[in-house]
């Protein structure tokens, strides 16, 4: 059986901050159609790894490949244009713009043409329709006129996701999409992400273990900058080293 080509791949990534090896030889593959969860305790280097993948950080050694193309030297903008959509651990939106404007900005980012000076953007039917579709898809129907800064926390998480969706990406990198959401919100977000995998594969960094076990096709466990285990949900649950390093017994019941 031939393995499908990974959409996103890291090869032996290394990054040190002084004596601290934040990323220490991480090789990771995100395959078409899958949700690959990345878990690990606080300080394991998850945020650093996301920075390396998204292009905000540069590795000391190693490579990042997107659709088989080496993007290690490309900056954030180029990686986004190459089809990488990320969301942020702390919601990151344009706070003074409406929900619709935020999502339209993402559509504009995907389609190009930010240097147009004449036609009012809100009258651009194609851009608008695409944005409204993504707003509906994340369950923010009817909220498109609200200024992003006035949204409730959970709604802002959804807006983040709508913006990622609007990029029509080749791969999603989602940094704790459930962070700060209540149990109901987390359940709805889980259903949303389950649906999202049909658009593009997801690299999911998440602390909510219910969500991870419900969604993930594969799980990689990051501890002290190294991946100590990688496998299916069942394999990870059974792995003694993972139990010792990270998972509490009660989660595995």
């Amino acid at each position, binding site marked *: 059986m031939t393995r499908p080509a990974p959409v996103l791949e890291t090869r032996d990534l290394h990054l040190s901050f002084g004596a601290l090896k934040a990323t220490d030889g991480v090789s990771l593959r995100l395959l078409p159609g899958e949700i690959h969860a990345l878990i690990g305790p606080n300080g394991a280097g998850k945020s650093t790894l996301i920075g390396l993948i998204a292009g905000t950080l540069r590795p000391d050694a190693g490579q990042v490949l997107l659709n088989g193309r080496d993007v290690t030297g490309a900056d954030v903008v180029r990686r986004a244009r190459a089809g990488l959509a990320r969301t*942020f651990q702390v919601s*990151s939106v344009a706070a003074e713009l409406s929900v619709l404007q935020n999502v339209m900005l993402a559509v504009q*980012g995907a389609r190009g043409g930010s240097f147009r*000076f004449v036609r009012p953007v809100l009258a651009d039917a194609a851009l608008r329709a695409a944005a409204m579709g993504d707003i509906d898809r994340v369950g923010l129907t009817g909220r498109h006129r609200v200024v992003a800064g006035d949204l409730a926390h959970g709604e802002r998480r959804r807006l983040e996701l709508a913006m990622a969706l609007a990029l029509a990406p080749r791969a999603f990198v989602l940094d704790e999409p459930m962070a700060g959401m209540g149990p109901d919100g987390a359940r709805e977000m889980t259903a949303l992400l389950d649906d999202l995998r049909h658009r593009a594969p997801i690299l999911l960094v998440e602390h909510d273990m219910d969500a991870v076990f419900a969604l993930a096709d594969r799980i990689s466990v990051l501890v002290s900058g190294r991946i100590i285990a990688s496998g299916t949900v069942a394999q990870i649950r059974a792995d003694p080293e993972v139990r010792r390093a990270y998972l509490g017994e009660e989660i595995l019941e």
Partner: protein
Amino acid sequence: MRREPLLNGVLALALLAVPLAAWALDEPFVITLATKVAILALAGAGLNIALGYGGLVSLGHAAFFGIGGYAMAVLAAPVQNFDLLMSWPFEVPGTKSMPLIWLAAMSAGALAALVIGALSLRTAGVYFIMITLAFGQMLYYFAISWPAYGGEDGISIYVRNGFAGLNTLDPIQFFALAYGLLMAVLALTHMMVRARFGLALAGARQNPGRLAALGIRPFSLHLSAFVISGAITALAGALYADLNRFVSPSMLSWQTSGEIMVFVILGGVGRLFGPVAGAALFILLEHWLGGVSDYWKLFLGLILLGIVLFARGGLIGTLAGREDAHD
């Protein structure tokens, strides 16, 4: 409710009605004051694109204002001296034509903004303020030591430049030109802010990191806004030089940068008619308080302090409320 468009209309009409009334009552001084307001508002409108819409706090916009002024002097001085602008490698005469002078001023302002912006935009925050200030001061000291154009004393252009079909020495006709340009620039700004460029620029101001993650480069947007901003402020500089028929290095001084910024902040940062309201208030205060006390700038300072502390949106923000939430 959308009060801001209404307020903008009132301001536009008032700035037109006052000099017209003064014209009917034969009060040329008032017309000249209104012309000064229109021109300074235009300088502020230029800065507002960088400061208000782009979030770029430039303390060096006097550079563009002065470049516009000197562009006028460089083109018009050869004509009054019966000289050529350039004699080698080919002969180029000077010009007294306002449209040509405006074009030259805007091109020079845009070019200077491209160079200054490309270097300054590598920094942000307080460093950006300092580096734009430094570029402004460099040009100021250059003008002081430029003997061909009067050095420290500046240079007088005795006859106002011309515009086909108008008598530009007639105050009301010169006012009409300045007012027309101001309104045209504000209309184009309004269009630009609502277009794709404006949306992306708003994103670049509010959250550059997020914008980059959407595949849009904040630097390109900021630089474009800075160039447009510099060109408009240079146009205002050319008009201001024509209003006074005089150019001097003080147009390039950092106090001028500060004053242009005060117009924008008084009126409302990122509000279309903010610079108009700000420049009008500034000139009125200068005129009235200046007649009452030599220390009028002390009162101006107090008013500015009050607005910054208690009325974040400036005059427009106070009168029209929060910016409309758009669609």
